[in-house]
Structures are given as C-alpha cells and as structure tokens.
C-alpha cells in the first residue's frame, strides 16, 4: 500500500514536471509592446509616474478590487475560526506576546524594553506607512504596502501601551475597515453616474493631469488593508476577546 502511494506521488511529480518545465525554460524573448505603450502614455493617461501603480490602480484596477475581496473574505473566515477557537480555549496559558493586559505580568519574557521600544517606534512606523501610501503614484509603494506597514505600526502600539488606546481597540479598527470598504465600493461605482463607467475615474478632466483618483484609491485601500490585517494580528496575539 505504501509503495503504491509512493509510486503515485513520483508519477504525479514527473508528469507535472514534464509539462511545466518546458514553459519555464522557454527561450522566447519577452514582449515589449506593453512596456513601450506605457512608457509613452502611462503618465498622460493616469497622471502617475510609477507605472506599476498606473497599472495596479489604473488600467487593471479590477484585479486590485478582486484582491481586496480575497483579503476581506479570508480575514473574515480566519477571524470566525479564531473566535471559535478562543471560545473553546479561553483558559489558555499566558503567552509571551499576549496582548491581554491581565496576562502580561505573569510572563517574564516580556520586558520593559519591548514595551518602551515598541511604543516609541509605533508612531514613526505609522508615519512611514502613511508616506508609502500617499506617495505610491510617484515612488515605489502604494496603498497595500503602506497598509501593511500601518498594520505593523498598530501592532507595535498595541504591544507598547499599557492602557488600551483608541487606535488599538479592535472595535474601532473594524469600524474603520468597514467604512473604508464601503467608500472603496462607492468610489468604484461612482464612475457609473459619469461618463467613465464602472471603475472609471469619475473626476477625470481634460485640463488637469493629476493622479487624484489613484491617490484616493491608495488611501482607501491602505486604510482597509491596514486595519483588517491589524485586527487579525491582534486577534492572533490573544487580544481579541476583550472588547
């Protein structure tokens, strides 16, 4: 029985290798049409100098919406499982990174050093996160990357502060998340009532060459991603069942 299993696995891997490796090894030169088009037109079309942003939130913004949805659904699913696990095992032993205040003093690994550094570092990282978010259209970065940095800043703040502040309260965070999701959908629909259609830039005008729509999307996506990842991380570190 075990031998049969092994043979099956070997055959599977060999067959897949036979099909995939030629594609990976193919020597066809990489196409340049898209790059050349973007080189000439990306700036005038979208107003963004970062062409990756121009594609990510301009030409192919629909993919980005799908990606945000995947994130939303998987965070929702993970949180549902987490809440149930938390209910079953609420009397778990204190863990070294536990955020629940009543568990903290029992752990010796947790020193003042961590709390001090994390609480001082938090605001700076937060600032950096917003910078990455807001300058995504002209420099590397963007909403998603900035959002993840914001999330880590929020986790830093949660680790650092003794008293719960508003920013690390999961209830407030999930409200921000919900609102930014709503605004994202509304922003994408708003084009329907103008000429540009679904996911078109509603504030497009011939005279101004600004990346206003991309900046707007960057901010919303950043807030959405940042808060939802922060909520998930805080829940995983044991701070979920105290609101």
């Amino acid at each position, binding site marked *: 029985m075990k031998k049969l*299993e092994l043979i*099956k*696995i070997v*055959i*599977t891997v060999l*067959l*897949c290798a*036979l*099909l*995939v490796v*030629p*594609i*990976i090894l*193919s*020597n*066809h030169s*990489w*196409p340049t*049409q*898209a790059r050349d*088009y*973007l080189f000439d*037109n990306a700036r005038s*079309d979208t107003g963004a100098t970062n062409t990756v942003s121009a*594609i990510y939130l*301009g*030409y*192919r*913004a*629909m*993919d980005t919406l*799908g990606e945000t*949805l*995947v994130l*939303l*659904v*998987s965070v*929702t*699913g993970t949180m*549902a*499982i987490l809440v149930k696990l938390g209910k079953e095992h609420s009397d778990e032993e204190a863990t070294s990174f536990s955020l629940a205040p009543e568990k903290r003093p029992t752990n010796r690994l947790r020193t003042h050093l961590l709390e001090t550094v994390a609480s001082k570092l938090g605001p700076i990282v937060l600032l950096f996160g917003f910078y990455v978010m807001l300058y995504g259209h002209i420099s590397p970065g963007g909403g998603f990357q900035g959002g993840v940095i914001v999330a880590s800043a929020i986790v830093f703040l949660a680790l650092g502060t003794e008293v719960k502040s508003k920013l690390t309260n999961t209830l407030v965070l*999930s*409200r921000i998340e*919900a*609102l930014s*999701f*709503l605004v*994202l*959908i509304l922003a*994408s*629909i708003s*084009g*329907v009532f103008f*000429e*540009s*259609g*679904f*996911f*078109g*830039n509603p504030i497009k005008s011939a005279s101004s060459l600004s990346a206003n729509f991309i900046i707007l999307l960057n901010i919303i996506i950043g807030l959405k991603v940042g808060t939802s990842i922060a909520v998930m991380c805080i829940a995983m570190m044991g701070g979920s069942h105290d609101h």
Partner: protein
Amino acid sequence: MNIESLFLAPIYLPLLASALLVTAKAFGQASKVAESLAFLIGLMLPAVCLALLTPAVIAHQSVETVIGAWETNLGIHYHFDGLSWLLIALHLAVSIPVFLYSKSNPSNRETFSIIFFIQCASVAATSLTADLFNLFVCLEVMGVTSYVLIASNDEDGSVLASFTYLLFSATAMVFFLIGAFGLYRVTGSLSYALIAEVKNSLSGNDLIVAQLSLVLIVVSTLLRCAVVPLSGWLVGAHSKAPHAVSALLSGVLIKIPLFALIRLLLLVTSSERIGSILAWAGGISAVAGILLALREVQAKRLLAYSSVSQIGYVVAAYGLAIEAGLESERGALLIASSLFYAFCHAIAKALLFLSVGTATDALGTKDLRKGRSAAAYLKASGERVPIITISYGIALFSISALPPTLGFWGKNMLTYLAKGHGSAYLLTITAILTITAYLKLSVLFLPSKRPVPAVKTQSFGAIHVSLLLLSLMILLGGVFALPIQHFITTLLLPLGSNEVYSSGYNAYHELAKTFVTLTFALFLTVLGCSTYARNLLAKIPASSAGFSNLFFGYALALTVLAFQLVR
C-alpha cells in the same frame, strides 16, 4: 445609464450590498432592515438589470468593453453577450431561493450574507471577463468564498473538506499562473482576443509552449467543475457544507467556470481536439458518479456523487459542441442543450439539497438505513402543509427525466443530440442508474410504523417560499421547455454564426423511451434489494480523497490533454 453600466450591475450591486452589511455589522446595527436592503440591492436589482438587458441579447448584441474606459488593450476586457446573460440568470435563479432559505438558519447570519454577496459578484465577473489574469482573480475570489462557506458549518468534517479543497485548488491556481506566464510570454497580451490572434499564427517551439500553457489553464479551470479525474474534492466539500451552501455550490458554482472557459476555447484554433476528450470525460464522470452514488448510504453524499454524474452530462454535450464547432448547426444546438441541462440540473439539485437537507435535519440522521417517514417528522416539527415532501417529489421527477418537468426535456434533448458518439451510450446507462439511485434516496420519505418523537417546532415560512419558487421553475420550465430551448439557442448564436437553428425535437414523441428507461430502473431497483446485488455494489471501491489521489488525477488530466494538443 449606458449598456456597460447596466451589465456590470450584477458585479457592483452585490458588492455594494456586502459593503453595507459589513458596515452594519461593524457598527452593531445588523438588523433585518439591513438584511432586506442588501437582498434588494444585491439580488433583486441585478435581476431587474438583467430583465432590462433582454432586448439587447435577443438582438444578438455583443458588447466588448474595457473596465475604466481606457483606450488601450492594456485594460481588462469584459465581454457581454447571450452567454454571460444566461450564466448570470442561472446564478440568480438559484441564489435568490437559496438566500431566502438561508434566513431560516440564524447562526453566523452576518458573515454568511457578506460572503454570499461577494460570491455573487465573483460569479457575475467570471461569466463576463475576457481577460486571462482577471479570470484568475475571479476564480480565486470564488474559491476563497467557497472555502469559507464550506467551513462555516463548523463541523470537523467540513473543516477537513474545506482544507482539502483549498489546498488542491490553490495549487492548481499556481499552475494556472504558470500557464498565464507562458501565454503572456509568447503572445505579449492577456486579453483573450489578442492572445488568440497571436497564438493562431505560432509555430515550432513557441506553439508547444502556448499549447502547454493552454492545457494548464484549461485543466485548472476544469478542476472547479469536478469532471472525473478532478472530482475527488467535490463529495466531501458539497456534502459537509450547510444545506444552502451545498445547493449553491452543487447547483451553480461547478458550472460557471466551464462556460466561462468557452470564450477562450472558441478563439484559439485546435481547441476542437480537446472536445472529444471532454466528451469522453463527461461520459465517464456520469457513469462513475452514479455508480458511487448507488453504494452510498449518507443522503447528502449521495446527492454530491450525483452532482458529479450530472455535470458529466453537461461536460459531454459541451465537449461534443466544441468538437463539432459552434458555427455548425450541431455544435450550436449541442452547446445550447448543454447550457439548458445546466439550468435543469442547477434548479433540481438545489431543490434536492434544500428539501433533503431540511428532512434529514428533522429526522436527526443522514443515514439512509435508519431514516424513515421524513414527512411525519417534518409534521411533528411544525410543518402544516407537506410542501417539503411535494417539492422533493417534483425535484425527483425532474432529475429522473420524467414528464412533465424541466429535466425530462433537458435530458432527452441532450441524449438525442449526443447520438453518434460513444459517450451517448454511457449517458443512457446513467439515465437508468440515476432513477435507481434516487429511488434509493426516497426511502427517507417512506412511511413507517415507528412512533414519531415530539421535536421542537420551528418556522417553515422562508423555507417554503424558497422551495415553492424552485418547484415552480421546474414545472413552468417543463411546460415552456421548447420556447426556452429556442431562446437559449438564439442567445448563444453570436458565439458561432448568425443563422437561427431549431432542433425540432419534441421529447413527447419519445415517451416510449422514457417508459423503457423507467422499467429498467424499477427492475434494477428490485434487483438491488437482493443480497447478491448488495454484495456486488459493496465491491465498488470507495473513492478516497487523499491528496496523492487528487493530484494523480490532476497530473493525468494534464497529460492526456497535453498529448492531444501537442501531438
């Protein structure tokens, strides 16, 4: 409001509904009002938009648009025609009753609705998209929502089923990406039309790379449809999910990717070589699925195996249509009958899952050897009119292809058109075995003399409304089957040519055939009660959904298709 905004409505309106629900949940205002508002925005308004679009699709209007109105090929192309109209209609026809049904289950309500609406949007987007990478994203959204919905039952079995499905299809999606890589590399584009344009003029090594990439994409998409070597994940996932989710997944979600794929397959030459393989795969799925269903003793697992068998019909007709070419009369009629059968099965299977699910809940057991007299149990739990039993009967008639239901027309029309190919024989055998399998399932409703214990009563209002809606669709569909068939054929014509075909087939002329099938099935059922037949059935090996088997099937499917295409 131009036509683009109208046909994209089934994507953004459900998203708006789910955003409203998310907000309501976060602010602790999740109430019936929010729920009803979401239902109106997310399901009823898209239905209205679809109705408004009917004149356009009847006039063979087919619109290609770039999301965001970019004047370039870099944007994401969406393609609206009769096919996307029908697919969205198919989804709405099942999802509206399912959503009503799910109101009867108050646990996890908010999360369920949020994810449900996102799934609606992803289904609409999958049926409209004409861009390879966007298809990947849509399939991922559809997949992630399915995993979460399956696991939302919070039973250990459903978590394992969800995990298996997740790992299998996530791996396949990585292969999909490799395929997209190969096609982008040799063609320099991601939209179907441009890919096909360049690919059809390739030769030598580049052609081999393109064909292999196409195989990876096709097989990874077919995985979601559970055709035979790829079907191992389905039974666990669909039998362990909550009833409403099972109905939706088994009814609609396994068919959407199949028909979404046709946009790509139609454009590339040499895809007709895939057709014959698909037809055989469909025939084999049909027989294998129903044989496994016959030996099953759990009600919902039997239904799930039967889904594998029924998707076999759809895939067989689909494969034959591609082989014949959609511009030919036979191809056009076959693809229409394939989609028509998809409708028949979607509605009947949703009704079966909902009614059998409710019945087994009342009985407290899913085991066909123990559960009896479900009607009495349902009555004891507060059902005044036996609507669940009646709608089960209607669904039974439809899936066994007995008149005057929708399924009678769908199945007979399909087997009539499939004549001449080997898989048609497999389909005929399946028709007989299907009746036997469902007669076996019906023992749940057989009266027995056992006393019925008093159970806590529940309200059946929402359940009844949803079951009645589905039953009505089956009966009305049976009465107006020929116009519907003609309507579907007309809608799908822009895919191939512009001539209007009519099969001229009337299933009532072949009532004798149905009678023979039924006699055979009854005979087999009587035979099946004997111990000898039971021993024989027990010898059919249980298909195990271990990972090595799943991936072995995947590799097998890849190899067969690649051999066909590269040869």
